[in-house]
């Protein structure tokens, strides 16, 4: 952006130089004049001195004439400009349809293009907002040989590189965690914490807003400072920007810490959601490379290339074994351990780069289409106005003046469309199309600034002027003049073909988008109406995560949960309450079918993978999950062989039938004895993470109120209910503050989280499809509109240029409908090609939507058919207008017009 401004300034400076150049010219001219007059006077008999004096006198004040000449130049130019603009306004006023068409097309196209373009630029191309960002890199440690994915480090690898590598001024490590609750004050709150080695701050070049940053010693366990940093937004939100925040003690469920400083809002590493920063230790007690959870970033030394750094680190890998004997060279080799060094910017946006690039390309295409349409509209209008122009020319208007008129009209329209484009772009950038920072990294850096506004205005004006010029060159003023004498189509063949091609292209794109929108629409509909297996109405859920202190056993946790249930049950309007480890569609990332199950008597048969849950007796009833056979849990189910309930799908997968009450089911576990359970009930299936994945086979362990009185060191079932979901059904559901109060009264440290209705779970599950569907539907409608305008303008333009031919035909006795039919035929041919191309393209590309489609085939006939039909109807209507006009041509007028 800056170099654009510089170029513009250079151009203006040139203009001034031209001005001073003309001043020099003028001086030359005046001197010449005076010398000639002097010479003439000398010829008449004066002496040199008198001659010159007389000449100067005769000339008049040089200064004055110089000024008047300069101002004549400027004033005339300005006059002309103002007059042209006025005329442009008047002409456009007389052709509102044309003006509206151009303004709408250009406005929406430009607004969307710049909105999306800004997002693409800010996310992909703009430098990260840190010091010397091109030196920042992400260092990855990859060991695909032993099946570990990702590029995170273990403490050992980080330690090793940090100590030995020379290519970096600093190497820092960090990871984030959601497992922290801040428990001071009235309202406990779950926070996002980033654990960072102290040098990460200096590496990125951040300064504290208040207080100080970490010192290297802060990471040791025994450090008495217990330092933490908090983010500016957290500081303002929770502590009201308390100026005495430094030194304040904050109670956190992992232990109280002292705030030593506040980090400014502009620092949003690793994500803007981070509230608290912990100094991260790098424990190398057990040197290994298999348990890896550190992200490592570094700053390259001046002049060092990332590839050089990567080479150095790769060369350091063998010495890992020397430093840590527990890491054997054999393991390093087997794991194919290697290092990757990638610019931090790249690494941050890598996940969305392909989509954003695609988006960028699409936007360029849309802009191209919009501009082409506008050019076509201009050409169409020019054809009609050509008579007017020819007359103006014959009356003495110069070509320059007529050309100016085109360009000014274009600019006026351009500026007018900016008025539409600005709010469009502002809307796009403020809503960011509904995306959040979770889907697109760095999205929070995107905003609508005055630079964006200037860009919109500038582009609009430029495009307007360019369109005017293009229309001008296509008509060719010489050609226009000829039109008064002989009739000849003024556009060349290749231009005509290009126009047709572009319109067919638009039609094709519109078809593809409409088909995609249709497919997604039906998927969305299917998703909303899918049998989810539970009743989402009149129910809500919230989550409670127990801290380690005070809840060491299953029984402890269960008792606590029971207390909450009792309190909530006493509220008016509450009908029933259930507790479980998980609720369907809660989507906490990664569907895990982590139980391996077998029929109790099915030795040798392969194990079946299944999801595992823990549920209270009332859970099924509250959720509306039907009980197909047997019973729900009851007291005593943990004793002896514990009871379990399984879903229909699991029953069929393991036993081949749902008649399994009383049978035994075994869970195989790696490294320990399998556990056996008795099946006491079979329930209906539910979805697990996503509706699209279908039902998940599910095994429910009992969540008994009192732990069934078992001793706390015995665990009858795998796992303790530390993070559970409560489900409440009733005629009147408790409000969020009520729930928070209730839980707080029982344990101050625990904040209930994810308080929402069951209905919102279903909404969230369909949100992704819904969003994509909406986007594509909007794009499809826009493409349809553009396509229609495109078809109309090209067909009308062609028809107008054939008006003489039509006149002759009509004069020779052809039926008007025949002439109209000619135009219609032209249009249909165009649309036909577009549709065929579009169908082919759609067939080829809709398979990429497969991930989003639910119970809809990518080649579903219904959608293809209806989209095609819609497109045909609309475009044919667009063609009818010029067809009718052609049919109504007056032969005399048509022939005379040429």
């Amino acid at each position, binding site marked *: 952006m800056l170099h654009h401004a510089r170029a513009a300034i250079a151009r203006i400076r040139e203009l001034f130089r031209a001005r001073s150049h003309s001043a020099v010219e003028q001086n030359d*001219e005046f001197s010449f*004049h005076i010398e*000639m*007059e002097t010479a003439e006077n000398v010829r008449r008999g004066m002496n040199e001195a008198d001659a010159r004096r007389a000449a100067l006198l005769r000339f*008049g004040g*040089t200064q004055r*004439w110089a000024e008047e000449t300069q101002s004549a130049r400027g004033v005339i130019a300005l006059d002309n400009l103002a007059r042209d603009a006025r005329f442009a306004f008047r002409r456009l006023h007389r052709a509102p349809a044309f003006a509206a068409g151009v303004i709408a097309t250009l406005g929406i196209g430009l607004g969307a293009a710049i909105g999306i373009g800004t997002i693409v630029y800010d996310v992909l191309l703009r430098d990260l907002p840190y010091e010397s960002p091109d030196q920042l890199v992400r260092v990855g440690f990859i060991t695909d040989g032993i099946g570990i994915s990702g590029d995170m480090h273990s403490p050992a690898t980080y330690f090793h590189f940090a100590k030995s590598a020379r290519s970096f001024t600093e190497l820092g490590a960090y990871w984030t965690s959601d497992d922290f609750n801040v428990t001071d004050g009235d309202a406990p709150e779950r926070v996002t914490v980033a654990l960072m080695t102290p040098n990460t701050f200096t590496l990125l070049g951040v300064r504290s807003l208040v207080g100080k940053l970490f010192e290297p010693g802060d990471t040791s366990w025994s450090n008495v400072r217990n330092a933490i940093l908090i983010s500016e937004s957290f500081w303002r939100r929770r502590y009201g920007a308390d100026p005495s925040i430094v030194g304040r003690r904050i109670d956190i469920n992992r232990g109280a810490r002292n705030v030593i400083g506040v980090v400014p809002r502009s620092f949003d590493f690793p994500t803007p959601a981070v509230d608290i920063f912990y100094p991260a230790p790098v424990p190398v007690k057990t040197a290994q490379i298999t348990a890896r959870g550190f992200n490592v970033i570094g700053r390259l030394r001046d002049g060092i290339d990332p590839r050089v750094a990567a080479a150095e680190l790769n060369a350091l890998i063998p010495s890992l074994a020397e430093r840590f004997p527990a890491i054997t060279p054999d393991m390093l080799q087997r794991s194919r351990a290697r290092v990757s060094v990638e610019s931090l910017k790249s690494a941050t946006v890598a996940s969305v780069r392909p989509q954003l690039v695609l988006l960028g390309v699409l936007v360029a295409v849309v802009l191209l289409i919009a501009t082409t349409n506008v050019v076509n509209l201009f050409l169409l209008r020019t054809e009609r106005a050509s008579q007017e122009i020819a007359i103006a020319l014959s009356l*003495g208007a*110069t070509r320059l003046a007529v050309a100016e008129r085109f360009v000014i009209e274009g600019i006026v329209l351009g500026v007018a469309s900016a008025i539409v484009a600005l709010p469009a772009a502002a809307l796009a950038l403020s809503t960011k199309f509904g995306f959040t920072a979770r889907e697109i990294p760095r999205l929070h850096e995107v905003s609508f600034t005055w630079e964006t506004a200037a860009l919109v205005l500038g582009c609009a004006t430029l495009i307007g002027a360019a369109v005017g010029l293009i229309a001008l060159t296509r008509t060719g003023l010489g050609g226009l003049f000829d039109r008064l004498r002989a009739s000849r189509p003024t556009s060349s063949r290749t231009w005509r073909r290009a126009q047709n091609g572009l319109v067919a292209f638009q039609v094709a794109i519109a078809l593809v988008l409409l088909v995609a929108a249709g497919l997604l629409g039906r998927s969305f509909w299917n998703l909303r109406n899918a049998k989810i297996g539970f009743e989402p109405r009149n129910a809500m859920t919230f989550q409670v995560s127990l801290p380690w202190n005070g809840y060491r056993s299953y029984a402890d946790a269960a008792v606590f949960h029971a207390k909450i249930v009792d309190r909530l049950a006493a509220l008016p309007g509450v009908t029933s309450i259930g507790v479980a480890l998980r609720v369907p569609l809660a989507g906490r990332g990664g569907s895990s079918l982590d139980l391996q199950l077998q029929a109790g008597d099915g030795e040798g048969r392969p194990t079946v993978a299944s999801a595992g849950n823990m549920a209270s007796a009332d859970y099924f009833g509250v959720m509306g999950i039907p009980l197909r056979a047997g019973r729900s849990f009851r007291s005593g189910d943990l004793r002896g062989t514990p009871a379990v309930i399984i879903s229909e799908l699991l029953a069929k997968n393991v036993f081949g039938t749902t008649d399994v009450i009383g049978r035994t089911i075994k869970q195989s576990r790696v490294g320990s004895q399998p556990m056996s359970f008795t099946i006491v009930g079979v329930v209906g299936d539910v979805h697990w993470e996503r509706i699209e994945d279908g039902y998940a086979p599910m095994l429910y362990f009992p969540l008994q109120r009192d732990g069934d009185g078992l001793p706390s060191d015995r665990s009858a079932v795998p796992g303790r209910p530390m993070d559970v979901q409560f489900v409440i059904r009733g005629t009147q559901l408790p409000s969020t503050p009520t729930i928070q109060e209730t839980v707080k009264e029982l344990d101050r440290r625990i904040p209930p989280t994810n308080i929402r209705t069951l209905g919102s779970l279903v909404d969230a599950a369909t949100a992704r499809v819904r969003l994509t569907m909406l986007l594509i539907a909007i794009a499809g409608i826009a493409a349809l509109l553009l396509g229609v305008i495109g078809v109309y303008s090209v067909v009308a333009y062609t028809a107008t240029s054939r008006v003489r031919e039509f006149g002759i035909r009509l004069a020779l006795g052809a039926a008007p409908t025949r002439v109209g039919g000619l135009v219609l035929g032209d249009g249909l041919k165009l649309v036909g090609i577009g549709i065929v191309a579009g169908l082919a393209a759609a067939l080829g590309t809709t398979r990429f939507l497969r991930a989003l489609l639910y119970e809809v085939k990518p080649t579903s006939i219904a959608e293809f058919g209806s989209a095609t039909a819609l497109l045909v109807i609309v475009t044919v209507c667009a063609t009818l207008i010029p067809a009718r006009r052609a049919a109504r041509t007056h032969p005399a007028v048509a022939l005379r017009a040429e």
Partner: protein
Amino acid sequence: MAKPTTNEQVLQGTLDLLILKTLSLTPMHGWGLTHRIEQLSQDALQVGQGSIYPALVRLEQRGWIDTEWRITENSRRAKYYRLTAAGRRALGQELASWNRFVSAVGLVIAAES
């Protein structure tokens, strides 16, 4: 400077016309133009010979005349002015306009009552 006489003012008004007409015969530079006009009209441009230059600029902006730097016979560099096609067309109209004006004044002068 004394107030311009009647005729000088009228002359200013017809300056454009005079320039166009003179250039229609042959391209000239600025001094040549003033000289010729003064010759033919036998009336000095009292306002100053330099007044021709703003007029020339205006005509150029309109696209009625073209300019070109050339070398004169005495090997001096001078800016020559030349009528364009549009200027030629304009000349015809300006002439008609002027004639209308002159006849109109003539009517007033000739009126008896």
